[in-house]
């Protein structure tokens, strides 16, 4: 186990393994996304109250779920970077932030688009929506903070602390609809007890959530490969790789 951990710290090894994972994961992800989206958008029944506008769930929920999970990945990479001073953990942390920010942004925008016909408003300052906006600012903050430093090690340290402090927001987002009175409805998919979404609508949603997890992994690995090449641009293995 430790030897695997040590190997993860080697840029050429990580670059290579990320490449070979991407080779099969990327086409699989695209296929699953297309299948899940067309299943959800074309082959599921309309909702009994919302009609067809509920179909935005197939983008909104997966984006939101993975935006939350992605934050934990970023914070975990930050913790590893702080404790073991592992450069590749910095790379992973830095690679998470723009992907997570994009997913959070998608969740907020699709939520607003759904909110207008359903609730009657684009935006309301309720606990769920506000805490989700804070998540977007946390992701953007990590990106900005990293760019604010010239020294990479200092940047990684500051970003790791910020992302660790921000983890407190994730359970708040998740439980906001149960703890406080909010306009946003509670979760339809439940880990314990029955889900309050019909199976015919739930299965494509599950597929889309899985696809978004895969998409996050793909974007993360692609971002990491670019960052590794940028950092190791002067090393022999990169020169050999690009044939210069």
């Amino acid at each position: 186990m430790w030897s695997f951990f040590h190997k993860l710290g080697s840029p050429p090894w990580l670059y290579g393994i990320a490449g070979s994972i991407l080779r099969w994961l990327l086409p699989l992800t695209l296929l699953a996304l297309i299948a899940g989206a067309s299943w959800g958008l074309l082959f599921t029944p309309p909702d009994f109250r919302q009609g067809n506008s509920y179909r935005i769930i197939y983008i909104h929920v997966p984006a939101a779920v993975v935006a939350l999970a992605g934050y934990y990945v970023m914070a975990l990479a930050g913790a590893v970077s702080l404790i073991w001073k592992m450069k590749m953990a910095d790379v992973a942390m830095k690679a998470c932030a723009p992907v997570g920010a994009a997913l959070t942004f998608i969740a907020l925008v699709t939520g607003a688009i759904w909110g207008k016909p359903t609730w009657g408003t684009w935006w309301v300052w309720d606990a769920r929506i506000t805490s989700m906006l804070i998540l977007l600012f946390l992701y953007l903050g990590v990106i900005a903070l990293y760019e604010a430093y010239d020294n990479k090690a200092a940047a990684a340290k500051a970003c790791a602390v910020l992302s660790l402090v921000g983890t407190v927001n994730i359970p708040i987002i998740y439980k906001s609809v149960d703890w406080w009175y909010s306009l946003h409805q509670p979760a339809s998919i439940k880990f314990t007890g029955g889900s309050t979404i019909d199976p015919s609508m739930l299965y494509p949603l599950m597929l889309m959530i899985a696809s978004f997890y895969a998409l996050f992994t793909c974007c993360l690995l692609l971002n990491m490969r670019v960052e590794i090449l940028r950092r190791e641009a002067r090393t022999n293995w990169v020169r050999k790789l690009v044939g210069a």
Partner: protein
Amino acid sequence: MHPVRKQRLIIVLCVVLFSSAAVGLMAYALRGNINLFFPPAEVAAGKAPLGQPIRVGGMVVEGSVQRSADSLAVRFEVTDYQATVPVVYEGILPDLFDEGQGAVASGVLDEQGVLRATEVLAKHDENYMPPEVAEALEASKAKGMKGQGE
């Protein structure tokens, strides 16, 4: 584990723990303000301020919606099954606004305890199902009630 790393691990755990505690205390202190709306029970208990813009949310009482014949004025009641608050509103209601469904009205409470709303939002619940399933549920519910009556 190397003692230096162990120390860093403890620092990391402390950072997470203390920041969570700080935010947790803050959320606890502000708990009343984080709620988007007052439930009717709190309005009835006099916890909601008069003459200030507030939101009241709950279920629209079945059969309580009265529309004006010559204007957009509408009157309805919201309930949390403990108390009800009458709401008057003039304007366009969202498509999903309906009796027996959730709604959040924002406006000012007058002395009679009527909420003069300036905005009414529909609150959607977490149930998603196709129309056929909803009809079947409705039918079996009606049948069950008839069965009980006999």
